[in-house]
């Protein structure tokens, strides 16, 4: 239902952009590198009661209280484990600081506009609303997530009174 809009997003995202590539289970995802503030380990997260299960809680990032979201739970991945490799990507979206838990960060990649294909209509888990497209790199496929839209969406329950738009 949103294919037309995806096309528009693609057009504006044009030109060569750099992406941070991270893994969730076997899948590879990418987000706009300009949104990333820093990368740190997963530790010392204080649980918040009555929050959705993918919100792991809050942590102290140099005096700032930052919520931590586990994208693996949000995307219904199996084998959600926390270990030495578990990484938190701290991103800046909509004037907020949010940490997202991923299985690992692999590299930073530059994609040309023609390497980014429109995302097909997905299932329920990850609405294609939240995707900027799919990046193709020889034998790899990167799911490019529009982290702004995803984290400010109502279903993430991170922002009060947020709307799908």
């Amino acid at each position: 239902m949103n294919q037309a809009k995806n096309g528009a997003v693609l057009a504006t995202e044009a030109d060569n952009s750099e992406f941070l590539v991270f893994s969730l289970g076997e899948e590879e995802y990418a987000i706009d590198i300009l949104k990333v503030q820093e990368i740190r380990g997963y530790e010392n997260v204080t649980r918040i009661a009555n929050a959705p299960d993918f919100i792991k809680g809050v942590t102290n990032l140099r005096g700032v209280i930052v919520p931590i979201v586990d994208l693996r739970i949000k995307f219904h991945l199996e084998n959600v484990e926390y270990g030495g490799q578990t990484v938190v990507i701290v991103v800046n979206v909509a004037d907020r600081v949010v940490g997202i838990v991923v299985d690992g960060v692999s590299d930073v990649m530059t994609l040309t506009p023609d390497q980014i294909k429109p995302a097909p209509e997905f299932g329920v888990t990850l609405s294609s609303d939240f995707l900027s497209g799919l990046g193709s790199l020889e034998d790899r496929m990167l799911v490019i997530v529009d982290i702004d839209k995803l984290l400010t969406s109502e279903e993430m329950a991170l922002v009060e009174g947020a709307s799908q738009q």
Partner: protein
Amino acid sequence: MDIADFFDTFFEEAEELLADMEQHLLELDVDDPDSEQLNAIFRAAHSIKGGAGTFGFTVLQKTTHILENLLDYARKGELALRADLVDTFLEAKDIMHDQLNAYRSEEEPDQETYERICQTLQQIALEEIGQSLEAPAETTPLASTTAPADDTPAEQEPAVNESAGQLKVALIDVDEKDRVLLVEELEQLGDIQSQSGDDKRYEVILSGSVSADDIEAVMCFIIEPNQIDIQPVASGEAKVEAPVNDTPASPPPAEPNASAPPAEPKAQAPAKAAADEGAAKGKAKKPAAESSSIRVSVDKVDQIINLVGELIITQSMLDQTVSDLDDQSVGNSSLQNGMSLLQRNARDLQESVMSIRMIPMEFVFSRFPRVVRDTAGKLGKEIELVTEGKSTELDKSLVERITDPLTHLVRNSLDHGIEMPDVRESIGKPRTGKLTLAARHQGGNILIEVRDDGAGLDRDRLLAKAKENGLNVSDTMSDEDVFQLIFAPGFSTANEVTDVSGRGVGMDVVKRNIQGMGGRVEIQSKKGEGTITSIVLPLTLAILDGMSIKVGGETFILPLSTVLESLQPNKDDMYAMAGDDVVLKVRDEYLPVVAIHEVLDVENAITDPTKSIAVIVQGEGRRYAMLVDELIGQQQVVVKNLEDNYRKVPGISAATILGDGSVALILDISGLHRLSRAKKEAGKPANTQTMSFYKESEPS
């Protein structure tokens, strides 16, 4: 510098000037106006007009211009002041404030009010003085600010400036070393005709075209302005006398002259001038003192506070590590010394930084003369307002939030507390009621009191009204509890609803607001003698006195102000009620029980109530027993907002960072109670219920 910066400066200054003007207008005694005050009002209007003209804010400039002309007549005694005229001036001030705000938001001010106020002011001029003011339409901005405006500076700095002839410069209490220097300086400025005197008073006669101001400017690098006395010699005297004389209440001769040789015959005339000049100088010194402060944006201050908070946390982490160290290790004692020094410095630093955010209560109190005047006028009452402890300091954010509740309390006192003048007289009280606003520090809190000498609260009437409203009351309640009834929603004993108050909304909002700031309200009252409403507030919102508790493996902070007591519940004192409700009997009171581990879904917590600890807490007037695993202790915590990066969480008011760097949540006492009830009503495991709330909008 951008022109916009100048605009901002003008807006800020104009705002201060308007506030000054209002304050002076309110203090003005219409029967015997103080000329100093009239001058101050006039000067404020004049400065605003000047600024408005420079920046092209024509409407503001014209309004001020008319007001200024009227004020000028008042200042000269040609316009007899009356209370209603002062009211009009105040109204004009309000309109100017609106105009200022309009310009600030880059809009054109309301033309209609502008024309109306201009007309009103013109009317006053016609009726009172019998001449119309120069029409504002023929706007000749700034430059031709008309004659009356221009003689302000002249009056302030007597004609000395212009007298080109000889000047007598007297140096008072200047020792020889400085004096030699100063005389050398004077030589640069003009020809020294003669010099004589001693350390007490040394006089130099200087000829040349240099002005007294210039001399003073040069001298001030070395000595204080009041150590210099500059007067024109002989020919200048007449000039000096003239302008000074039309200030009626000239102050008595002051110190500078005290040391002047009394016998000297010609010293007589200049002496008076000097005294007046001294007074003017004293005033001129003020701005210099003000410039010793700087304007800093609150964001910057908050950033420093945050960083210092971080420093404190890092310091306590280090402290922890050091105290865990083996005593045997080399250099340990110097390390520990260093640590304690660091701790002290860090605390001092924190205290000083916090004090930056503190502003005096004067900022709040200064608006009340106006509120009282307006309200009293509306009610036909005579009220004298007294403020105490204006310099008591309070966190800026609290100052902003205390104003509304305080205004409400003041209006309430005026409306319901203080009686009509005739009634007061008939019961042997002075006609004029007295309302006192007082602020002072009390331990780590600030105590703000609204005191009136009015009718006081009527216990019986309150109780009767409460019963009528179906509130749960008994005749044996303590006075304190009865008085708290007025904070119940919808509770009003006023016989009729007035313009000012009596609708019964408000007092409960006042109480909620104050509780929201972590404070409380208490009422003491004696029928027929008056009422004292006390607001107790923490000094700052940024730091909270907390009690840390443990449930399961998790640490939470309870605001200490909500904790009444804690005890180990006895099985015999726990009663089950319909469903899974449990109440705990504490002395003669049955309190609802809220188990934290149930409400907040904490795992591995103690589920047997008799093995846990019951903390009796009070929030929003509701008392309940909160079951926790363990009390850890009291500590001061830095309050961090959860909503900055996340959202509001039911049952949690904020977060803080513990000594080990981890985050602990601060519990919201009344929120927890609501949450617990909501969960029980839903009759479902808490998690699924709230989850469904959160996931409402998930596409399916």
